[in-house]
């Protein structure tokens, strides 16, 4: 019996609050709103089950039916837990946890028996909102969050007030939120930030589809369909020509006939000389969960700790899991590793000798017929240019000897096909060569004065090592589709292919004029806004907070000082709100009546009808009506209303009466 005793006591402490139908509808809407952002990530059976539970609850509330028995809910819960265990193999991972929470919220609605249950649903709803930010933290998400929060607060007020109508509920929720926004802003700026993660490594924090450290036919081409932003660049002075904007990423050495990989190289430090054309810029890199950073060829300085590998890649010790910002210095003119380690050169000549015999034979012919390495390179580029090669997003499937198939069969490919084929030919002709992946170009945003480099700008090119000249960049794609280098991908692709590109990428090309200019403009504005949002809201990490507070004039930034400034700011704002809020408690309406009447008297005084000190309102009205007979009704009306409010029996607290007087005085124009 102890259980029932406990229930009785709770009922006494919390007088059973009326969980009326409207409150239940409100809670249903809350759970629906928090589930919507998760709909696309949840397994289908979870979404369907949640919808079914919500519909079931709505039906019960609508028909005023009793709630299902506990054993039934328990069975559904056990089934869901089993389903999650089968689907996710755990209950505590992020995805599994979110799924479980959403199902719990929906099930809790079917178990609403007291105000306490409703409170649990509301707390759960607040918590589930935050899990949506794993997937998206865009401005749209933020707006949706504010809307959801308003509904949750209004429902919460409903729970606590029982009978309040919808409009005052929404008003109170709105007031609470409007007051919270400036306070939250202070907290957001000054709350001492700690760099996460506190525990574990959120490997799943960001799922990205960026460049990989391996390349096979189709791996770069599939990125071309993504208009996700890879990074944004702001140049300090003049930006370089577009055909100079090679953003260097992973360098690939080893080829197994299908895939290019980085492999392991020597630790001879990289050497650059004959530098020319310096350029400074700042990169804001999107999280990519990879160690490398991107810079223009060839970088010489970078503002964050990063190492330069023997093949001129910039690498960090840890993967980039949050948005990262760095400034870098590059030299567009350079001589890279004129003295190369012979072992490295040997690596750059290796290829699977038992494959692609036709390509090997062609390369040997070129080698035998040429006097220099440069001549072999020119022959190869001319071959690509003349022999009917096509640049396309949808190349045909290749057989076992991929290079042979491509060079002598399909002759259709994306940049990785050309880079791969070219490097293979070079190696077969005895010229050290390697594949470089990265991004080419970028789209200028004139509103934000920066360049956006998207995943669709991903590119692969080649480097060959020449005596005395070191590693020289050769872009075989340029030989087939020069427009790709000069104008961007959309311009280089045939019409049929570019239709498959995302709108953002398509509009990049001036050749495609069927995108209206206002749309391009809106797109730029949005992206500028998004960039600001990313920089200031999402990218507000400890470094950025430090930089911002320094710029605001805060010296010696310690968490104590930040906490102090935060408290002081909050106290000031709360004090201000307190004054505003408590003023409402003591407004005297009688003064308002007098003020309105005096306003009316001033209007008459302007026309020379001045009220004498001995004159009562009635006498004054009579005199004024005589002088201005056309306004007699209005004067009489205002005087009557004033007298009723001031001297009459009517309640001085009569809000409607005061409002009527206010309208009458406002309408009184002589």
């Amino acid at each position, binding site marked *: 019996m102890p259980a029932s005793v406990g229930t009785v006591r709770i009922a006494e402490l919390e007088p059973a609050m009326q969980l009326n139908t409207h409150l239940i509808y409100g809670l249903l809407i809350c759970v629906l709103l928090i589930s919507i952002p998760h709909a696309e990530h949840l397994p289908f059976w979870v979404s369907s089950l949640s919808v079914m539970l919500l519909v079931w609850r709505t039906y019960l509330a609508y028909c005023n039916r009793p709630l299902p028995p506990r054993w039934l809910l328990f069975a559904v819960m056990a089934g869901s837990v089993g389903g999650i265990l089968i689907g996710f193999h755990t209950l505590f991972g992020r995805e599994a946890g979110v799924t479980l929470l959403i199902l719990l919220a929906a099930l809790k609605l079917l178990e609403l028996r007291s105000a306490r249950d409703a409170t649990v649903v509301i707390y759960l709803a*607040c918590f589930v909102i*935050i899990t949506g*930010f794993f997937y998206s933290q865009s401005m749209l998400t933020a707006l949706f969050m504010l809307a959801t929060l308003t509904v949750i607060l209004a429902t919460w007020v409903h729970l*606590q007030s029982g009978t*309040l109508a919808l409009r005052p509920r929404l008003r109170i929720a709105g007031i*609470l939120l409007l007051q919270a926004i400036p306070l939250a802003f202070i*907290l*957001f700026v000054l709350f001492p930030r700690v760099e996460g993660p506190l525990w574990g490594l959120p490997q799943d924090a960001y799922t990205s589809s960026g460049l990989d450290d391996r390349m096979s036919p189709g791996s770069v081409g599939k990125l071309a369909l993504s208009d996700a932003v890879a990074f944004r660049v702001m140049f300090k002075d003049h930006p370089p020509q577009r055909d100079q904007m090679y953003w260097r990423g992973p360098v690939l050495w080893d080829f197994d006939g299908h895939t290019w990989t980085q492999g392991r190289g020597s630790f001879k430090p990289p050497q650059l000389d004959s530098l020319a054309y310096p350029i400074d810029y700042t990169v804001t890199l999107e999280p990519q969960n990879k160690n490398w950073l991107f810079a223009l060829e060839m970088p010489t300085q970078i503002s964050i700790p990063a190492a330069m590998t023997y093949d001129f890649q910039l690498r960090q010790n840890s993967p980039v899991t*949050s948005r990262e910002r760095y400034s870098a210095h590059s030299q567009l003119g350079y001589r890279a590793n004129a003295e190369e380690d012979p072992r490295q050169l040997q690596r750059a000549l290796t290829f699977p000798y038992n494959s692609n015999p036709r390509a090997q034979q062609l390369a040997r012919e070129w080698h035998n017929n040429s006097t220099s390495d440069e001549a072999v390179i020119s022959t190869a580029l001319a071959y690509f240019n003349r022999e009917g090669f096509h640049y396309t997003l949808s190349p045909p499937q290749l057989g076992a000897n991929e290079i042979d198939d491509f060079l002598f069969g399909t002759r259709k490919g994306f940049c990785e096909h050309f880079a791969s084929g070219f490097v293979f030919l070079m190696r077969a002709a005895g010229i050290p060569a390697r594949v470089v992946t990265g991004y080419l170009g970028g789209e200028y945003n004139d509103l934000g004065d920066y360049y956006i480099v998207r995943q669709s700008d991903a590119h692969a090119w080649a480097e060959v090592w020449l005596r005395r000249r070191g590693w020289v960049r050769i872009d075989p794609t340029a030989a087939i589709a020069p427009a790709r280098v000069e104008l961007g991908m959309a311009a280089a692709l045939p019409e049929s292919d570019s239709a498959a590109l995302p709108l953002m990428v398509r509009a990049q090309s001036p050749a495609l004029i069927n995108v209206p200019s206002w749309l391009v403009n809106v797109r730029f504005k949005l992206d500028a806004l998004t960039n600001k949002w990313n920089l200031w809201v999402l*990218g507000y990490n400890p470094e950025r907070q430090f930089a911002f507070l320094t710029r605001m004039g805060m010296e010696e930034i310690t968490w104590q000082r930040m906490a102090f400034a935060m408290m002081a700011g909050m106290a000031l704002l709360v004090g201000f709100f307190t004054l505003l809020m408590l003023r409402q408690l003591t407004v005297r309406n009688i003064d308002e009546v007098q003020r309105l009447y005096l306003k009316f008297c001033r209007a008459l005084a302007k026309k020379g009808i001045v009220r004498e000190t001995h004159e009562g309102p009635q006498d004054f009205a009579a005199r004024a009506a005589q002088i201005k007979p056309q306004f007699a009704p209005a004067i009489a009306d205002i005087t009557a209303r004033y007298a009723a409010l001031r001297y009459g029996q009517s309640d001085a607290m009569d809000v409607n009466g005061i409002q009527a007087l206010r309208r009458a005085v406002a309408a009184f124009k002589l």
Partner: protein
Amino acid sequence: MLAALKQQFRSWLFRPRIESGTVTLNQRRIFIIPTRQGIGFVFVLLVMLLGDINYNLSLGYVLTFLLGTTTLMTMLHTFRNMAQLEIRAGRTDPVFAGEMAQFVFHFHNNGMLPRYHLKIHDGTGHCVTFDISARQSVEIKLPIRAAQRGWLGSGRLTLFTEFPLGLYHAWSYLQFDTRCLVYPKPAAHQPLPDSSEQSGKGKFNVAGDEDFSGLRRYVAGDAFPRIAWKALAREQGLQVKQFSSQQGRELWLDWTLLPGLAAERKLEMLTRWVLDADMQEQNYGLRLPDIELQPGHGAAHRSECLRALALCGLPN
């Protein structure tokens, strides 16, 4: 020792005293503490903050801070929901012991802010919930059980609110000098004393047969011809016609008529008689050990008699 200190602290903090007139709720009178749900919500917020830090969720920080500052500001809203209310106790109608005394309080909201979901309760679980619109007054009746005759005070009442989110509990103690007169509980029905048995001076009121004077409930032993059959037909229960000859005769309801009964039982019996005599519109007088009320009739006389009975033998 600790309990005594606690008691002393409470009496200093809450300053229990009985007040009259209009009380305005100012800061000094309103206390506020977080509720259990409030503490629970702070715990939820802390978990959210940990999640934000761990996953670098900037928008999560925004949400957590929004909810956190809402929680903070709610304290002010809860306080404001009660602040500057004017309260005075109203007249409370007398009741008979065993009934519910309806204590009346007038709440006036002088501001432009509507007040929602205020609750007032006494210590024994009677609770009334109400709202007050802007610039309005409401009259709240709080029922309290009247156990025994005499004066019944409202005791210390608690006015509280948890509006808007139930995260804080703001309350104020109210103890007005208002009191409710509690009449003795009327005894079970007994016939009025017969005038023939009266030995007192003055006039007697005899239940005679000259004038029809009203109906009273049937008591075993009443004569059959006097039963009001028409009333029975009207489904008014079994009643007996009463006739009286009042000229120059008055009924004395005398304490001494009831020997061998406990004092309280005597008062209950007398109360019953006063009610019956009043219903029959007789002239009756009341004689108690400490007071003698001359015969009379009417509502005022009835009230005077009942009051005398209620306060008989009690220190004023």
